[in-house]
């Protein structure tokens, strides 16, 4: 590696300059009002957690974790997601006070990048978790809130795709011979590698019947067949999973202003291994990557010795910024320059203006290196000096 230059930052780390900072603040405050109105409470968790607990429970791949060692010799991680720390707090404390529990967060998470220097390794995530509800009403609340929130933030064109981890697993298990085959096929669906999926079907030496079922399942998904068409792939005991999805679909039809926003795709699979029930992704025109995702993750709580239902979603603020028009309002910014002997007078002038909520910068003129360049940053410049000229 070459010598590190003084201005360099660690791989994947970014500065937020004033303009971007204000845009993020806009998202944060808009989202905060919206989410609090829905009855969710915001919380904050430490940036650093134990590797043994959060690091291992998190669905983020170990190679993406930033690890460090504390002065006791314990392995620590920079939090790679917020869902796992929230599960920790809920299981150990908050669920005893309130159940079901509604929590929200706006926090930065850390995921080490190996490829391509430019990808962020630290980014803000905005999300919420509904813990303690097994029902389709819970799922519906989360999907609906995600859709409304994205709309409230000003994203015009977006789609939500809903899948179901339980149904996908059931279909894969019904038509394969062991867990290894299920995992191999699921991994190909995570990568959305349909060509690879077909090749794998040949390779695994499945029966014609099994191959046919799986091929038809994928084809039905690509063609966006109605949900009930997937009943044929499930056994009698598994029908209850599809009942759940149909209930969810009905609830969403009632709640959502535009039902076309939603589509179902049972090949949707996530690299987040703790999703057990419905899961979804939010795609918006303007960004090449999903802006958010979520789902049901009851399994995660078993790691914390708790048996509750939980669903939630997270939105990537950096990707949201890409698709959002700049909504920040340009405010007037005034510069008051003063010369020796006019300190008090300029202060009074500045305070008078600030009391009318104007942004005012007060600056001793002789300290400025290049007045002309400096003045360009302001909308109005007032010179307080002998003669007191306005410029």
């Amino acid at each position, binding site marked *: 590696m070459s010598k590190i230059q003084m201005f360099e930052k660690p791989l994947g780390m970014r500065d937020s300059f004033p303009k971007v900072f204000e845009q993020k603040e806009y998202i944060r405050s808009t989202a905060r009002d919206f989410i609090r109105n829905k009855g969710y409470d915001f919380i904050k968790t430490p940036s650093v957690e134990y590797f043994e607990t959060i690091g291992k429970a998190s669905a983020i791949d170990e190679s993406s974790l930033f690890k460090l060692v504390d002065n006791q010799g314990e392995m620590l991680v920079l939090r790679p997601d917020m869902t796992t720390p929230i599960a920790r707090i809920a299981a150990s404390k908050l669920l005893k006070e309130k159940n079901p529990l509604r929590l929200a967060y706006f926090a930065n998470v850390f995921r080490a990048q190996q490829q391509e220097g430019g990808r962020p390794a630290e980014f803000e995530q905005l999300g919420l978790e509904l813990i303690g509800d097994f029902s389709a009403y819970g799922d519906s609340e989360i999907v609906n809130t995600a859709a409304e929130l994205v709309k409230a933030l000003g994203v015009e*064109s977006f789609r939500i795709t809903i899948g179901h981890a339980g149904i996908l697993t059931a279909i894969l298990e019904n038509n394969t011979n062991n867990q290894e085959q299920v995992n191999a096929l699921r991994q190909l669906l995570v990568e959305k*590698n349909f*060509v690879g999926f077909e090749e794998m079907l040949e390779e695994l030496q499945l029966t014609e019947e099994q191959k046919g079922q799986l091929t038809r399942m994928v084809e039905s998904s690509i063609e966006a067949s109605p949900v009930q068409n997937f009943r044929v792939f499930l056994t009698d005991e598994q029908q209850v999973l599809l009942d759940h999805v149909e209930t969810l679909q009905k609830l969403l039809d009632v709640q959502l202003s535009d039902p076309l926003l939603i589509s179902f795709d049972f090949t949707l699979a996530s690299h987040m291994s703790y999703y057990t029930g419905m899961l979804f992704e939010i795609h918006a025109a303007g960004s090449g*990557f*999903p802006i958010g995702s979520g789902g049901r993750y009851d399994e995660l709580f078993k790691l914390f010795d708790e048996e509750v239902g939980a669903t939630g979603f997270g939105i990537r603020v950096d990707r949201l910024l890409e698709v959002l028009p700049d909504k920040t309002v340009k405010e007037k910014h005034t510069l008051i320059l003063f010369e020796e002997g006019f300190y008090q007078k300029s202060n009074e002038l500045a305070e008078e203006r600030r009391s009318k909520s104007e942004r005012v910068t007060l600056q001793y003129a002789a300290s400025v290196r290049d007045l002309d360049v400096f003045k360009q940053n302001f909308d109005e410049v007032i010179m307080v000096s002998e003669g007191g000229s306005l410029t």
Partner: protein
Amino acid sequence: MNELTIAMPKGRIFEEAYQMFIDAGFDLPSEIDDSRKLIVEAPNERIQFILAKPMDVPVYVEHGVADIGIAGKDVLLEQHRDVHELLDLHISNCYIATAGLPNTQMDDIAPRVATKYPTIATNFYKEKGEQVEIIELNGSIELAPMIGLADRIVDIVSTGQTLKENGLVEYEKIVDISSRLIVNPVSYRVKNERIREFVAQLKNGMNKR
């Protein structure tokens, strides 16, 4: 109807794929006059083609500036881009293999492998448990064993003619390669219907061939 942007690899694969689209019944301009053009419009189908280096096609598609792309499986394996692989077009079929001078062994002390595909080569030797040094070259890989830069090369083989002419023999086949239709994950959702129709028509055309 939404406009579709399709990233195409320049050169031979372009012509083969373009013909394939025409055979599938897409109403495209039959002559592409200026070969130096980077963007070709097909207004009747509301399709825009961008012509890119084959290695760059997945980059355009991953970032969403192209909705669809045609890329060799070799490039996809090498780059691990976040794109959906929807269809095997069964064109430009070939495979990746290791090759070297006849009747030679890998050097015991410093086994070296020259390749245009460092990731594929690394993974292949890693899985075999062999420690080798990978040397990345950009072309004329066959030179490497001939002049003693490397014991083996990892490269595309289609007919084996190039290997033969340079006195090399194939040792191990690594993976089969063909051109694939790839789709950006967001376009796949946001322009779902348009892309579904496009793929269905293309598939239909392929089955007739």
